[in-house]
């Protein structure tokens, strides 16, 4: 336990926690993305959408071994703890960094290596906290931009992404996420001591691929709905229920 304390107090330990929790959150993003892309799958039956079945699966997975939504809430708790640690360590490190240079340079310091992505991590990260809150309010609790389609993800997506301001907001948010990941997805390996000159180019390319890929794939769903490629939903909730009963 003493070692955990020493580890947490040290700057290298804190950075390792930021890196490890960042890796967890990145892994979550990839799974989230795989789920989102189900919106493009053909409908298994008229008026039934694959992504709605997937959303049902997320709630019922683990039954009957665990009660409904147990697995979902476990994953949510892990993510919440990871996000909390990620933010707490960054806030503490940021304070320490400010204290390390009490008198600023008068001439604007030149930046020769740091990319904008690296320099704006605190800003992009702060925006992403705000985004996560709004995103959960919109698509998880349904309090924001309420759709009235209940649990039908497809219908909710259809309704939300026919409004230009939602499409625009999500596109900007994904761009900021990509900026955050461009530095983060490489930096986490360096913080964990896993980078070296042999791997560095590969890891830098990995970070670039992750940030561009995540932006394009996440933004494709709102773009597809806005452009009218996606069918209008049937009165979805009832139809899904019928389909489930028939099976």
């Amino acid at each position, binding site marked *: 336990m003493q070692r955990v304390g020493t580890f947490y107090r040290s700057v290298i330990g804190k950075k390792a926690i930021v890196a490890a929790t960042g890796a967890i959150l990145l892994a979550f993003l990839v799974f989230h993305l795989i789920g989102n892309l189900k919106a493009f799958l053909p409908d298994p039956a008229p008026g039934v959408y694959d992504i709605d079945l997937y959303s049902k699966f997320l709630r019922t997975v683990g039954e009957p071994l665990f009660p409904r939504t147990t697995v979902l809430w476990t994953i949510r708790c892990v993510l919440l703890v990871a996000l909390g640690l990620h933010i707490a360590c960054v806030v503490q490190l940021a304070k320490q960094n400010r204290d390390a240079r009490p008198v600023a340079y008068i001439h604007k310091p030149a930046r020769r290596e740091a990319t904008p992505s690296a320099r704006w991590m605190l800003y992009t990260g702060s925006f992403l906290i705000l985004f996560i809150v709004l995103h959960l309010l919109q698509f998880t609790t349904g309090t924001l931009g309420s759709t009235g389609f209940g649990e039908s993800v497809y219908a909710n997506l259809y309704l939300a992404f026919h409004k230009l301001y939602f499409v625009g907001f999500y596109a900007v948010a994904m761009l900021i996420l990509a900026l955050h990941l461009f530095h983060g997805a490489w930096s986490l390996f360096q913080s964990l001591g896993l980078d*070296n000159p042999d791997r560095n180019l590969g890891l830098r390319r990995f970070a670039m691929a992750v940030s561009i890929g995540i932006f394009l794939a996440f933004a494709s769903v709102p773009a597809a709905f806005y452009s009218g490629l996606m069918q209008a939903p049937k009165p979805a909730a009832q139809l899904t229920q019928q389909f489930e009963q028939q099976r």
Partner: protein
Amino acid sequence: MNFTLKIWRQRSHSEPGQMVRYDVDGVTPGMSFLEMMDLLNEQLTVGGEEPVAFDSDCREGICGMCSMVINGQAHGPARATTTCQLYMRQFEDGEEISVEPWRAAAFPLLRDLVVDRSAFDRIMQAGGYISVHSGPKPEPNSIPIENALAEEALDAACCIGCGACVAACPNGAAMLYTAAKVSHLGILPQGQPERYTRVTRMVAQMEHEGFGSCRNYAECEAACPKEISIKFIGRMNRDYLTATLRRPIKRDGPMDSQ
């Protein structure tokens, strides 16, 4: 060549400082930055003014004493160069040049451009050594060392401890310095016995001195006059994580009786 200099003047740590403008003329392109500063100081002395205090020693780029942030860049605009090896031909005639000291909480300012870098010495004292018998010189080939390892250790050992990494780091971190000092011993066979206690103690001292943390900007690498790579920071991170997550081996003090 003529230059307008804006130099940070501060009589002592406790007194407030400010940027002061000076015009210096009669500079030749072949003068080093420090020689230009000497020229300015001569002009100031003749005019009855207090000369600008700055650090310098070997003036051939190996001692690590000179320390000026020139136009917002530690050791000036040239890469892999100390201030003393920076020549005035790098600048344009009539240019306005700003000169500031290293800025870090762990480097208290003593006067004008002189800062106290003994925090680095204390980091070294915390673990930057190997414990060996100081007997007769050992036979050189008794411990075989792979050439690539020796070269890598020497890359880290190039560090002259000037502190440009701290000055250039947006977080005022001393990670590159500490990583270089941890690595040049930790890579070699002679440094293995104390490898993990060394990294733990040196990092603890680094934090105790009030340096910031690493955000992997690599600004330190760009400012380092010896071009020390941030790969050593990654290496130190790995050693530190191994050291803290491993069961600590207690070797200090007497053994407990049963």
